[in-house]
């Protein structure tokens, strides 16, 4: 099972770009990298997912180097509403090859005015 390591907390200001890096040295060939966002008193929600190289959607970008041992979530021009905990999750659910999806500690992002 791939173990993930992220910074515990990060601070930023409105309008800045925020990059959160996740280390996953023992990622397996079939594993995907998925990031979730969690606000207080809510369940986590999906932000972005990738397997290799770069993925971009309407809210974030995900950069994955060739060795896939780390990944970086990039949030462009953050606002106060981006204050949340961000989790990196590595795993797969290919039949009979997975299921035990274990979260790391998460990164608490605080965006200030």
């Amino acid at each position: 099972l791939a173990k993930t390591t992220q910074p515990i907390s990060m601070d930023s200001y409105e309008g800045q770009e925020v990059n959160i890096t996740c280390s996953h040295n023992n990622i397996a060939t079939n594993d995907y990298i998925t990031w979730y966002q969690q606000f207080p008193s809510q369940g986590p929600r999906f932000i972005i997912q990738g397997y290799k190289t770069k993925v971009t959607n309407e809210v974030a970008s995900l950069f994955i180097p060739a060795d896939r041992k780390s990944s970086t979530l990039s949030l462009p021009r953050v606002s106060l509403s981006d204050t949340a905990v961000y989790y990196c999750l590595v795993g797969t659910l290919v039949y009979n090859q997975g299921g035990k999806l274990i979260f790391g500690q998460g990164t608490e992002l605080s965006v200030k005015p």
Partner: protein
Amino acid sequence: DAGITQSPRHKVTETGTPVTLRCHQTENHRYMYWYRQDPGHGLRLIHYSYGVKDTDKGEVSDGYSVSRSKTEDFLLTLESATSSQTSVYFCAISTGTGNEKLFFGSGTQLSVL
């Protein structure tokens, strides 16, 4: 969200009493999960299910049991609740097709006095 209902939303119980939490989904997803979340510990996997009557242990399964007799329902039972099981419990679902995205319920706040 994503057709997941957790019940009850809040529960207060006494030490030593049995407690059952229910997760109901309308998505017909194969995988279902129970996580607990405590300050400073992030999300920890308790048990998960990969089909009807198919379950497996997560990171913190001691003191918990689960059952899945129908695709749509996943029950978490605390046979004899302890104060250390005071937590927020989240249910999640996923399709089980490989590039998994987890969809979470709104959580159950359980207090064991």
